């Protein structure tokens, strides 16, 4: 099947099997390996990307569902020389260790900050509870998101 998607502002067209997951499409067909799979059954949130402005699990979304759509991935935020304020806050507050869950954390947190810029600590913990991290104990992730929300105001 032919699929046309804009990813991080760039238009792509690929011929793919209908069963190809959006995450595999990004990672394998487009070589955007910043999006990670942690469980492939929609629990861990590592594969979270934005599709048409809303967060989705790219392990539970087929690439064909994104046809004609806009996808934002971690590669579409900042660069190593010019980090997005959210990425910068994660670095500043040590909100990552192994970094594997981080792309999904960033994409979920970005949606939260856009939707609820004045989120409290409890709001943040609740909103992030669909993204699992095994390294940080979440404390510094929560601190980073609060700081980023402040910085992005």
């Amino acid at each position, binding site marked *: 099947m032919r699929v046309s998607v804009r990813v991080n502002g760039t238009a792509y067209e690929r011929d793919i*099997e209908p*069963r*190809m997951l959006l995450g595999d499409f990004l*990672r*394998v067909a487009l*070589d*955007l*390996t*910043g*999006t*990670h*799979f*942690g*469980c*492939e*059954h929609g*629990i*861990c949130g*590592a594969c979270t990307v934005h599709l048409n402005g809303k967060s989705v699990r790219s392990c539970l979304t087929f690439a064909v569902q994104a046809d004609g759509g806009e996808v934002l*991935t*971690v*590669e579409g*935020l*900042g*660069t*190593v020389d010019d*980090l997005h304020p959210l*990425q910068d806050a*994660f*670095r*500043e507050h*040590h909100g*990552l*260790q*192994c*970094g*594997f*869950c*981080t*792309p999904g954390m*960033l994409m979920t947190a970005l949606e939260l900050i856009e939707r609820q810029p004045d989120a409290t*600590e409890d709001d*943040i*913990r*609740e909103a*992030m*509870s*669909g*993204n*699992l*991290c*095994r*390294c*940080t*104990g*979440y*404390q*510094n*992730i*929560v601190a980073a998101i609060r700081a980023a929300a402040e910085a992005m105001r």
Partner: protein
Amino acid sequence: MSLDARPKSVGRSVKRVEDPRLLTGQGAYTDDLRPARMVHVAILRSDHAHGAIRAVDTTGANAMPGVLGVYTAADFEGEIEPIRAPSKMRDYKMTTTPLLAVDRVRYVGEPVAAVVAESRYLAEDALRGIEVDIDPLPAALDPEAAAEPDAPVLHAEFDSNVILAREFGREDVDAALAVAATTVAGRFRFRRKSPLAIENRCCVAEYNGGRRELTLHSSTQVPGILRDCLSDLTGLPGNAIRVIAADVGGGFGGKASLYTEEILVCLMARKLGRPVKFTSDRLEDLSSTSQAFDEIVDATLGFDAEGRIVGLSADVIGDVGAYSIYPWTAALEPVQVVSFLPGPYDVPAYRGRVRGVATPKVPMGPYRGVGRPAAVFAMERLIDMGARKLGLDPAELRRRNLVKEFPYRAASGLIWDQSAFVESLETVEKVVADEGLRDYQATARAEGRHVGIGYASYAELTGIGSKIPAAPGMPVTTGIESATVRIDPSGAVTAIFGVASHGQGLETTLAQVVSDALGCRLEDIRVVQGDTAGRAYGTGTYASRSTVLAGGAGTLAGEAVKERLLKVAAEMLEAAPEDLDVHDSRVTIRGTDRQLSFRDVARKAYLEFGRLPKDLQGELEETRLYDPSVGTTSSASHVCLVEVDAETCGVKVLRYVVAEDCGVVINPMIVDGQVHGGVAQGIGAALLEEVVYDADGQLLTGSLVDYVVPSASEIPHMDVLHLESPSPTTLGGYRGMGEGGTIGAPAAVANAVSDALAPLGIEITEVPITPERLFRLIHQKT
């Protein structure tokens, strides 16, 4: 600025050098690799706990689209040596781990056959084309039942499932307990856990036939162990094998052993002449990555009339799963339970017996804390039970029994060097007092709420040197690490280590150590790790060893390079080396503005080599090995406040404080992060996480819906207080600290829940404390 006042890198919360690439999606995790012509493996796994393989028919799979080959054990016969973890322990029975199952399957999830295809999708499709005929065999799932003489044996070559047995102790514990003023006893059950890194295991092998070179990329903590093991198993010389662990997405011990998939992809890459990748999915992770902490601890603790411990006896059964794991052996986890059971306390008489029992489950291996979480859970529960019986405050009973004079030889033979045992306890005690937590509890109780406070104190041996083998007769030495530090002609510094970071930030902390030793700017250092090409020997990162061992080696190598640099610079500046300072990547004549950059000195050393006096000729490069010989004690006290909801039987952790002594802190930000993560895993172990097998050996927790790890909602805000007492036995005074959080938290939470439910007479003896277990406990009592 005087030398001493000049800011050092060690001790500062410098931002991590790893972060920019990881934050922008530019990490290089193993599954991100896609070498040209790469093919994919999918593994067909046993769906029987124990059975005889009658036939494996691969014809259907062979005919499926995109399939390049379907393999069973017979296809690799004669290609590798048997995989066995030897040990010198008496009574140890050495199992053989098959590459793919031969004749028998011994756990659900054991690899039986493998398909190689053009894509992961096609490889997984082809699994449906393999027919496996297995006759189920009887099996004992429960470790106590499996230890009985008449239990069906899992390994026909042995007469029993008890594959290891040991006993530690001193003095006559029975006599001591017989005259004790008070004794407490319990049967403590720590249920099986999965390390569960968010990145599933992944490996990619490339074989260059022309050069006879094998490269294995793996999400491993132990690239050095893998290289040496691959050499032993395949007969390839070590110089033909390179193992690379670039960015690794967490490990926690689950990626610290050899996995048969890692050997399979190597053998397949050699057969096919194409790169071969295996990427585990989460079900495979939960049914094949090493598991942990599955123990029953039957223990009795006796006190004299003043509350001083007089004796401790314990019988431990460890459910070690189907095979003795390579290279650690099945002894690693359960034997450490009895080694560490006396904890940081003065225990004059002790007997700890342990048996490791083979059952049809995933092999038990290392997981953060190894042995100590179960040991500390049992001992700290006994201390709290003792305090209740003696009518003493639990912190006071701890204070009376904590070791106060160092070095101290523990009852199991471990040596505790100077460590802040009492200080850490008193620090958390002060938090309880300052925050009025007992008053809060009293008020809550008056309102009919169940609120409790739980302490846990523990000690662990970290940075272990070559004199203390992790298991006697093990095929690897874990006690040494080396480092090469070099300055190249551009003046840049490279520091090469044999350890392998999988999230700990070693590229940052080791750079901090080298920066101080050599006198260069942090940004001028590139740390190379996780690649066997750089080192003759170096095993990897596990057992809270990397900061102590690699930090020590990096310090020695950095100082040695600095000495060389100074000699060349002295010649160039016509000054005496002792009149020179090195800082910020510059050499200065003290008290003057005359200086040289590292680049100036390096260009002289390399490009004008012939013009230097003979004794100054040489590279600005040194390699040093560090062996801390024994090990050093890290210790901590935890305290937490919990509330039990009597309606839902849910437990909420309201407050959590850790006071810990990890010696000299290199990077406080990173140390705090490690403690936070460890505590979160310990809270998971205490309240949520449990690998469950049913009576037929079927795995019931094969997804993250069923194996529940904590999310942000279950973890409280934590405070970490540092008692920085420099280790007297290690270079730099560092102690290892990566595991501590997980060691203390299950005990602290269990003690807090027991304290909350003390009015109901409930003592927690089993973790995780799930709502179901709590419901049963509460309703048995009321």
